[in-house]
């Protein structure tokens, strides 16, 4: 009976292992495919620790299963005692020393990999000394605002130049958030009253998803973000366009999607907040600006720190899309 149960357990574990492996393309067996040297280094650390830990697990649980099978009572009465062994100093010293050595190896590896983190890792000295793109990330309930060196602004969608050093300054003016794009590296908290910095370099083109990782309130789960890595020319063009008057409507649209729509719905139909489609307030530009700046009732002061440009862009977008009579041309 006891043997039958063990066989059953083995089958169950095997089935679990197989199913797991079956839908694991990159099914969560490692951090996502890295798109920056930082994420790459972190993945190396993961693989090393995984290898060591799997080894330890097999050793310990192997011994456990072996002893369970080998030394089961097999009908011996409870009175039958095993050998009265109280300890073995050398053995105990050995299994104290071995973990110390293993952990020292892991720590040394971590320190070595950490020394190679940052925007310039792997770059020749000439490029490494070039100025970094400085982007400020401001976490808000419940959106990310990005400010680029020339004053351009985007919401929830961060644009990055391919293979150029970037330095992020991460701040918050309400509650704590945590900035995290798994493919680009680890997370860093946005904590009110602090300015946190991190540097990295995106080495893959494409769009990489992420989301806020520190509980920030009711819509924490909706505080998603993505990083778009663009060829350098395209990135420069985009930053210039966004900062110019021509980029205003796009900014308004992005702000609406990132800020307003999370509570009021993508078509302004209302959700957590009331419906804004054809709301009479849309006709009152000054009143709208006051509410966005200061909040009202349950609505937080989402636009407290916005530039006049961003405020105007948002109001323009709102009126164009949701104001009665404000059709296409606005």
């Amino acid at each position, binding site marked *: 009976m006891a043997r039958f149960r063990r066989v059953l357990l083995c089958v169950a574990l095997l089935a679990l292992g197989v199913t797991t492996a079956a839908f694991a393309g990159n099914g969560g*067996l490692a951090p996502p495919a890295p798109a920056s040297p930082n994420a790459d280094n972190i993945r190396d650390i993961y693989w090393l620790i995984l290898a060591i830990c799997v080894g330890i697990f097999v050793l310990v649980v192997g011994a456990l299963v072996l002893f369970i099978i080998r030394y089961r009572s097999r009908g011996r009465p409870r009175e039958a005692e095993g050998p009265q062994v109280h300890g073995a100093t050398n053995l*105990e010293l050995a299994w104290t020393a071995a973990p110390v050595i293993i952990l020292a190896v892991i720590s040394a590896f971590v320190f070595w990999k950490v020394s190679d983190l940052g925007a310039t890792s792997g770059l020749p000295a000439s490029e490494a000394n070039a100025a970094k793109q400085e982007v400020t990330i401001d976490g808000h309930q419940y959106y990310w605002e990005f400010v680029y060196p020339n004053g351009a602004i985007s919401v929830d969608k961060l644009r990055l130049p391919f293979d150029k050093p970037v330095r992020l300054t991460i701040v918050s003016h309400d509650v704590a958030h945590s900035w995290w794009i798994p493919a680009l590296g680890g997370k860093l908290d946005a904590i009110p009253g602090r300015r946190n910095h991190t540097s990295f370099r995106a080495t893959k083109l494409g769009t990489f998803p992420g989301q806020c990782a520190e509980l920030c309130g009711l819509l924490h789960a909706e505080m998603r973000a993505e990083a778009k890595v663009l060829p350098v020319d395209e990135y420069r063009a985009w930053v210039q366009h966004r900062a110019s008057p021509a980029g205003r409507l796009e900014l308004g649209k992005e702000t609406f999607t990132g800020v307003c729509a999370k509570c009021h719905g993508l078509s302004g139909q209302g959700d957590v907040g009331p419906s804004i489609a054809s709301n009479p307030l849309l006709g009152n530009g000054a009143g709208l600006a006051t509410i966005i700046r200061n909040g009202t009732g349950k609505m937080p002061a989402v636009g407290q720190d916005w530039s006049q440009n961003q405020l105007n862009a948002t109001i323009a977008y709102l009126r164009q899309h949701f104001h009665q009579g404000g059709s296409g041309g606005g």
Partner: protein
Amino acid sequence: MAARAELPRTPASLIVSRGRYSSWLTTSDHKRIGILYMATSLVFFIAGGILALLIRAQLATPNEHFVTRNGYNELFTMHGTTMIFLVIVPFWAGLGNYLVPLMIGARDMAFPRLNALSYWLFLFGGIILYSSWFAKGGAPSAGWTSYPPLSDVPYMPDHGIDLWILSLHVLTLASLAGAINFLVTIHRLRTPGMTWMRMPLFVWSMEVYAALLVAVLPMLSAGLTMLLLDRQVGTHFFLPAEGGNALLYQHVFWFFGHPEVYIMILPGFGVISEVIPVFSRKPIFGYTAIALSSVAIGFYSMLVWAHHMFTVGLQGYLQGFFMISSMIIAVPTGIKIFNWLATTWRGNIHFDTPMLFALGFIAVFVIGGLSGIFVAAYPFDWQAQDTYFVVAHIHYVLFGGSMFTVFAGLTYWWPKIFGRMLDERLGKISFWLIFIGMNVTFFPMHMLGLLGMPRRIYTYSNGGVWEWYNLTSTIGSGVMALGILLFFVNMLKTARSGARAVNDPWLGDTLEWYTTSPPPPHNFDSVPYVSSPRPLRDLRRRLAEARA
């Protein structure tokens, strides 16, 4: 060291009060208080478990609307707070209450009335927490850690958080009084011959449990008081806009919060150190190493708190320091596991339910310990922090660790406490369901974390593997719940009708098996002189020699 068995006066617990119910309300008998503690914490375990099942139901599929956003935040806040403050910590206070005086040959705890006060404070602390469902704005919803500024008035003006603070304040007082009681009892009331190095290992673990509580609970009280003042009096300890520091709370909270993890697991280690030798029919391997490793774990647990804060932007050298101190803790923990393994070596292993939970504990706790090494390596923690990887880790440690040892302890001492044997068949079925369900629930969470699923999100929109892992986890939680249900059925069924238990059904090593099952109010008529850590085995041998 003036530990003497003869107490100078009749303990309050020996003044037997009449009345079937009123005697329980007025009792100061450590055994009855222990039962009250354990029973209450198990009721809260059911409550916390139901909250967990609701969480898993909400996460079973993407874009689910089984509960509201706010309802979800309330669920995980109450689940975490319940399991930590109302289940595991008080369960150990209850089991310790029942066993420590018996194991050291004393008649009662050192301060029986203070002991009763601890229990009633615990009960009312729990009631206060659960009353928050009816407060304006509902239950607290800032997570069991309740970081400001989110938990501060501008963002959570309703009263859930205030009741959460009040409840934890009351529970802190309860634990503090209980911990002082344990320390005095263990230091002063040991029976003649029971030196420190002859003390049962469970008593050793309760000593470290109590010492840690005394050391770190004031820190929690301080943090909670500052938060309360911020919310109600208009101070701004944690509001940066007014010159406060939001990070201060995290330091204060985790200085308490990490030792709290060991407060929850050390008594469990103690249980395992009692169960494994008895069911292997061998002495514990490396008694001294196990006892001292508990002390080492207790000490180092106070030096690792910032590993919960690797992503807040600490200086590099601080992150390095906290990585190394966190890894050092793995060494004494490893020593314990190797010693338990060595104890089973060449034994005569009996697979009664307590032993199944003890062996199962080793297997799953190893996973929880190893994933701890991952998150201690701080660059990797930048990826794993606040994701389901960490959720998996804490549940392997707290469910696979603490709760498995709770089940092992309950089934091991059940015959002593109630004088009845549990049903072995039901016990084994419930073990396998809990063991399999636990792994199916929590193992996929590692993968979800690596895929990028943060904790505390009420829903997700990714299908594919995200959905598969979440669904698997939800199914596992159902299997686990079934196992736990059977465990409770077993307890209820056998409490009155189970087979009568003899004084020492497992042929134990320690003094509690010397007295009757259940023990009389005064515990012992006489206590044998203790000349080794295994007085009962010594006694059995002497009796056998006398017969021969």
